[in-house]
């Protein structure tokens, strides 16, 4: 039977042996957290993005269910949405994704001005995206209350543009901290996380664009 005394005390009492382990980082201080992955924070962002995707899966489920149970989609008397602003926004979304990825690659090579330029461009494009959307939203409030089509259409756009807003705020934080010189190739979790999240937002937009505009 085991002694009731503290096993941890036994461990503390005996000498360290980690330094003699052939596979340990000899002579280097171990990190406070025994890490298995390079970046715990990014893994967290990845799982968060999974949950965010499921939110949109829920909304799309409603879209397809309501579409399948409706006689006409969009219903009679409702014009299909104008394609031009959505096409423009698709271009803007793709450009901003390129910019944010450029910013991330730049700081990975310690190119701070590249980071600032990339993130400022991506943020500005995000603001333009929201401006184009908001023009469409003035027409949407009546549409939302008129039919199931209008409600799901509005919700998908609304909850996507909310994510765009969050992304733009994140990019604003990155920009300010980049100007303050907080980032380097070794310290860029926020930049990477923002870039990942922005790619996700763009991905959602592509699905929204395809389903709401092209396939209706």
């Amino acid at each position, binding site marked *: 039977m085991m002694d009731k005394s503290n096993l941890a005390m036994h461990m503390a009492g005996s000498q360290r042996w980690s330094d003699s382990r052939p596979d340990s980082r000899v002579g280097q*201080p171990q990190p406070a957290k025994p890490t298995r992955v390079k970046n715990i924070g990014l893994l967290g962002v990845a799982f968060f993005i999974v949950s965010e995707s499921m939110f949109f899966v829920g909304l799309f489920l409603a879209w397809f269910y309501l579409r399948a149970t409706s006689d006409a989609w969009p219903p009679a008397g409702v014009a299909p949405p104008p394609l031009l602003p959505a096409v423009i926004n698709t271009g803007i979304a793709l450009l901003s994704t390129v910019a944010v990825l450029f910013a991330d690659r730049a700081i990975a090579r310690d190119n701070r001005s590249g980071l600032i330029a990339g993130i400022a461009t991506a943020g500005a494009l995000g603001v333009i995206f929201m401006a184009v959307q908001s023009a469409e939203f003035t027409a949407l409030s009546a549409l*939302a209350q008129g039919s199931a089509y209008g409600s799901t259409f509005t919700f998908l756009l609304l909850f996507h543009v909310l994510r765009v807003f969050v992304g733009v705020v994140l990019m604003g934080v990155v920009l300010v901290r980049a100007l303050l010189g907080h980032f380097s190739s070794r310290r860029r979790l926020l930049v990477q996380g923002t870039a990942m999240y922005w790619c996700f937002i763009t991905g959602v937009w592509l699905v929204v664009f395809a389903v709401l505009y092209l396939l209706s």
Partner: protein
Amino acid sequence: MKLAIAEAIATERDMASISIPIPLRDRARTGLLGWLATVDHKKIGVMYMMVAFSFFVIAGVLALLIRLQLAAPNMQVVDPQTYNQIFTMHGTVMIFLFTIPMLVGGFGNYLLPLMIGARDVAFPRLNAFSFWITLGAGLVMFGGFLFGARSDAAWTAYIPYSSKTFSPTIGMDIWLLGLILLGIGSTLGAVNFLVTLYSMRAPGMTAWRIPMFGWAMGTTAGMVLLATPVLTAALIMLVADRNFNTQFFTTNRVQLWQHMFWFYSHPAVYIMILPAMGIISEVIPVFARKPLFGLRAVVISTILIGLLGFTTWVHHMFVSGVDPTIERFFMFTTMVIAVPTGVKMFNWLATLWGGSLNLKTPLLMCLGFLATFVIGGISGVMQGSIPVDQYVHNSYWVVAHFHYVLFGGSVFGIFAGLYFWVPKITGRMFDEKLGKLHFWTMMIGFNVTFFPMHFLGLLGMPRRIATYDAGRGWEAGNLIATIGAFLLAFSVLIFIINCIKLRNGERAGNDPWEGNTLEWSTTSPPPEYNFREIPVVESDRPLFDARMRTPSA
């Protein structure tokens, strides 16, 4: 490589470990602020447990009101409107504010980092945020309830009961708001657990050396991550329908709500049972003095249950007018899920078989789990059959079934876990005699309450009725159930007395049960940093290895 090194040093020491500097935290904070401002997973876990247990007591009192009302025909303890509010709150609180926060928030938080040899979860501040938003959600729901803003559309909030027409008051909106907040809290908690489990394990803890409870929590967190956002979307849509005149859940499309609700709420059943299964998978081997029989089979079954749990939700809608072909598919998947569950059942029995059973309260609770859960499981398979379901749907048979699963399963599992780990949490042992009395009163009270409900259901008594007329043959069953409910409440009272007596309990020491997992290697209660040195794991039972190596004791 690690194994060879471990063997080389095994002659000198109890357990291999590596020194990692203890992260510095503001350890000076004690008293109330030490709890309110904590990011320590153990304190957060204990707060989850306390909050969840308080909600359990409150929802239990609501259940007693339900049983009083139904004790005899035409009773008027409360009026029908209030009765609807009471059973709505009973269901909601038991599921969302007791079982899930207790198992995932309480046990998960407290045990997961300790079991995998970590000093905390991956994101301690996010963890604290999850707790406070969960508590806030509970207070929002209960605040509304106490101040007259009550929802009465049952925990399922089916359309059209929950629509503006039939639930015109703000109570429904408060209820929805509370659930949305809870969903955010538990989704973020799931992210935290998954990252912790993936990246914070002690050296040497390969996938097959993760304790069974860790696997159960990982599967549960995965289900929360995938299922909860869909419910959140549905809840927001319902809020919009009620307040902004959107047209999602119009009366000719009531099924949309049912699909979205059950897409979450059927996996939620497994979110409530898998951690409890994880608990008994830890407790049974310790008290049978044998390793868990077929660890890999149990792990694979757990993951299969998690995956299959997403393919069965339509079996709640067999009388909703779904296409019969789709219904048959879901009938099949529902029955298939009994296979991995059966595998686990037989593995637990095989663990007990030939073991040298130490019949202390934790094991008794596990035996209670096995005996009652199997009844709930089998009645579930019966209901999975479309013709049977169409007969018993919305009757007391269903009430009996899910209480056998969620009380007989989850709650017995929770008490097994509490009797097993509270000595670790507090450093004091429970009174064994009171524990046994608690078990037997609970076991008898539970079966007396819920077994007659099977007959009531078959005799045609519908769920959620505020009262009934005499002469339908329901009187005896209902009276017996009410008597059982009070015995059940008495058993919980015994547990509360046992908790109060903990103060003078025998000291637990580090490892009162001769456990297998890493939490028993540290002090009771563990220090804030859990382990002075991070242990190196060499098998799925690291503490067993350590005991085998210590010849003196």
